[in-house]
């Protein structure tokens, strides 16, 4: 019930907001804030009641929804989803506060769509029925299209439709895979399917079948992550989206892709996963061993390619967007390792990247609201005028480039550690990404904050209380989980051990 409320309270909020008069802007914003704070409070209660030691799904609800296809409303959480759900409900109010001043038109529709988006995201992470999972996955598409398309920057129309088309393309392939799984397994229930897929001789356990289905799901999720070569929508969408939406995009929507990879591809399709992560398994099926490096190579490309692209950017937001691609590569690499430290690192990196990228996009938004441009070379010496802002930005940069003691380090280190035992060369090459990451962040820091003050920004104002309010909770998490990551790892190590790991 608690989980159901968390999913649908934002939806109720949307209906309430839509009933409010259009010009009561303050009321609309406050109502939205309330309806995003309720899920946060529920989330805290959820966390309080969450048993870290348990192997079972928690807060499970399972009722029949559509008889004709045995579709259930089946939700529940385990270690894989709990952190992401909490991150989602935490970012809800933060994004509403971040949108408080800089949404100029149609605030009612904006807030309504935002609440719908939150329902889709929380629902997606909670869903345990494949069909429900898909419906929530797609439910995030529509609000996102409008949020980018209406409130975005100059090229918003192009960015919005590109995002929509890419994601829909991925998800229709996922749909075919899903139907194929249903027809073989006779159910949409993810836990049941996981059991069936591991039974010897079951139609679902057939490696060839699993490989094809794996590909269908994989492309669907890969577009979302985004994994090279499906990533080109991301820089456009990020650059055009308003600040709060960029935050959601980077922190949550990208995680939907990797979460799906773990929940479906990893847990449900072990044979398919093996084919793309284990050269021996590929050879055993009579294919070239190269297939077994497939996922790791994609992770490696993401890391290196994303980092080098980021290095080349002069647009602050685009830089952060490409750095996201790079950091998601560590998640893929960690998953490709399929061992405990690799997967733990991947999941840790998902959460931490969510927090850090949210901070980075909020910070870009702060300076953009003041200067109305994001050209990195167009600033200079802001540190003298905005010391607090500079401090917080430095924290976020350091966390993102993987400074030990901050949260970004732990996930990446574990992912690399896990991957090293299987793919030595690729892992070593991947560390290039970290070096380049340090380079572009430090270089940006220098160009924007250090040096002589650009006279144009003589009168630029310091970060205000509202903006600090959005950043502080994230900053605290960055430090806490950097110093004491076990707090986070304990929440999901039980779930990791349940995955079909290889030593």
């Amino acid at each position, binding site marked *: 019930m608690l989980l159901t409320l968390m999913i649908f309270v934002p939806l109720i909020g949307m209906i309430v907001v839509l009933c409010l008069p259009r010009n009561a802007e303050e009321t609309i914003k406050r109502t939205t804030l309330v309806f995003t704070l309720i899920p946060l409070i529920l989330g805290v209660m959820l966390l309080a009641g969450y048993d870290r030691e348990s192997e079972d799904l928690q807060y499970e609800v399972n009722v029949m929804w559509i008889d004709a296809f045995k579709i259930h409303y089946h939700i529940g959480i385990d270690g894989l989803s709990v952190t992401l759900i909490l991150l989602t409900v935490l970012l809800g109010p933060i994004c509403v506060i971040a949108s408080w001043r800089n949404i100029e038109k*149609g605030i009612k529709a904006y807030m309504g769509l935002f609440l719908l988006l939150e329902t889709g995201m929380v629902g997606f992470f909670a869903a345990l029925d494949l069909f429900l999972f898909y*419906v929530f996955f797609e439910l995030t598409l529509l609000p996102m299209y409008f949020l980018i*398309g*209406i409130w975005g920057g100059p090229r918003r129309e192009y960015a919005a*439709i590109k995002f929509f*088309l890419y994601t829909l393309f991925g998800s229709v392939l996922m*749909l075919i895979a899903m*139907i194929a799984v249903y027809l073989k397994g006779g159910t949409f229930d993810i836990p049941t399917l996981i059991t069936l897929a591991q039974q010897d001789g079951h139609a679902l356990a057939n490696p060839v079948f699993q490989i094809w289905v794996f590909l269908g799901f994989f492309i669907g999720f890969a577009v979302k992550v985004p994994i090279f070569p499906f990533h080109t929508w991301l820089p456009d969408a990020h650059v055009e989206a308003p600040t709060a939406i960029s935050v959601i995009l980077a922190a949550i929507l990208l995680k939907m892709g990797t979460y799906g990879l773990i929940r479906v591809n990893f847990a449900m399709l072990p044979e398919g996963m093996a084919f793309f992560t284990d050269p021996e398994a590929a050879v055993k099926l009579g294919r070239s061993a190269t297939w077994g490096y497939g996922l790791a190579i994609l992770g490696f490309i993401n890391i290196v390619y994303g980092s080098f692209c980021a290095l080349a950017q002069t647009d602050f937001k685009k830089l952060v967007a490409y750095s996201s691609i790079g950091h998601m590569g560590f998640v893929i690499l960690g998953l490709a390792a399929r061992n405990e430290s690799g997967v733990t690192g991947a999941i840790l990196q998902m959460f931490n990247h969510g927090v850090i990228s949210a901070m980075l996009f909020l910070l870009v938004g702060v300076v953009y609201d003041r200067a109305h441009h994001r050209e990195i070379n167009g600033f200079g010496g802001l540190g003298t005028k905005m010391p607090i802002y500079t401090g917080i930005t430095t924290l976020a940069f350091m966390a993102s480039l993987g400074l030990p003691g901050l949260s970004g380090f732990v996930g990446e280190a574990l992912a690399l550690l896990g991957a090293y035992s299987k793919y030595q060369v690729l892992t070593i090459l991947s560390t290039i990404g970290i070096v380049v990451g340090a380079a572009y962040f430090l270089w940006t820091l220098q160009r924007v904050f250090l040096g002589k003050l650009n006279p144009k920004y003589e009168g630029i104002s310091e970060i205000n209380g509202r903006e600090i309010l959005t950043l502080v909770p994230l900053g605290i998490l960055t430090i806490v989980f950097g110093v004491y990551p076990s707090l986070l790892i304990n929440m999901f190590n039980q779930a990791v051990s349940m995955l079909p790991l290889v030593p």
Partner: protein
Amino acid sequence: MTSLTNIQSIPYFIPELILVVFAVGAILLDLVNRGRNTERVAYLALVGVAATLIAVIAVGSSEKSLFLGMIRLDSFAVFFKIIILVATAVTVIFSIKSEELDPRMKGEYYALLIAVTFGMFLMVSSKNLLMIFISLETVSLTSYILAGFLTHNPRSSEAAFKYITYGAVASGTMLFGFSLLFGLTGTGDVVQISHRLTEMFSAGEAYPLVVLVIITFILAGIGYKMASVPFHMWSPDVYEGAPIPITAFLSVASKAAGFALFIRLFYSTFQASNIVGSVDWSLMLSIVSALTMTLGNLAALPQQNVKRLLAYSSIAHGGYLLMGATLLTPEGIQAILFYFITYLFMNLGAFFVVVLIANELGSETIDGYRNLWSRAPFVAVSMAIFLFSLTGIPPLAGFFGKWWLFMAVIKQELYWLAVVGLLNSVVSLYYYARIVKAMFLESSDETDAISFSWGNLALLVVFVVPTIIIGFWNTVYEVSRASLGRIVG
């Protein structure tokens, strides 16, 4: 299976009789009114449709053959009759609202609309080749007149002319196919034909080539009604030229009747395994299906006129529906039935918005929809819901319809067709989103609010609500399942 005699059949034929009475009544009322107050005729037509609906439900499905085996009254026929009636009622209401029709002519227009409905009733229940042809012609002839109803508009006349030319060729071809089939089997009853064909194939006496020719010829006639490639050429011009209410009607009711006829004929006649084994018409159909949706979607991409865009989109939807028909499995047919329920609401809803905008702004182009969001938010949001539902985005009804169709296809392991269909859905997003983009993302110089009457908005709600909730509603799935019933009998 015994069939009832003519006299015994009459009680089961009451819905059709009511339609005939009201068609004649509409003409008489128009005559008495001398072409004034045509709204009265419209209301009479609505009463007629309502009475027929009640009669259809009251008579129910008796799974009987009527008139010495000419038509069959089963749940399948009842299902399509209800779909057609709803579409007719909606068309009448659209026509009252529509300002493009000549008010003096509207009286006979409504009479013709009821006559078309009568023809479609026969089409969905015919089980004899002769009856099939007669019903098809009844529908076609009246449709030609309706399509050309804007006598002052050359496009409308062009539409009617194209419609009639294509129609004549198509039905002639089909008739030739029928005559061959009759010559081969010596009977017009579809079930008997099936038995004969099966016997002939198992005795090795049949010529597969002849059967292939027959099937191809019949498909030409029915494909024309379903607007499937390569017999679709008439439909964009007709859809664009015809009055908007008629376009809406043709794209839903005519298509539904065509599919009903097709399913009944093929399911009864050519379904036996040894026929399918030697004449692979299902492969032919899957290719037609793939071509139909691809062509419909690609042709819709560059359209600037919303009506024409929806015309091509409706060709594409015909292609999706054909996927369900490729193997005529019960699963596929049920999916088609369900899809028609969703299609009824989303497609008519979209056309209704087109009517409203054409009335208010006099524009049918996408540019005319610019900034509609701030001018008429409710209409814009409704249109977006219809269009996204047509694309097949969950949680809207269209998604669930497509979902079932794709499931039927994948169950038959026609993976290539499923992939083609789904990629087509992605393509279709692009042009549907162009309208959405114009409505929500683009600004225009016109910013003053457009107000619509409460009646119009209420009618819009009637389309919007089902488009949102059908997918979550178990009963609709059950109805679609149950309506397949026993087509063959």
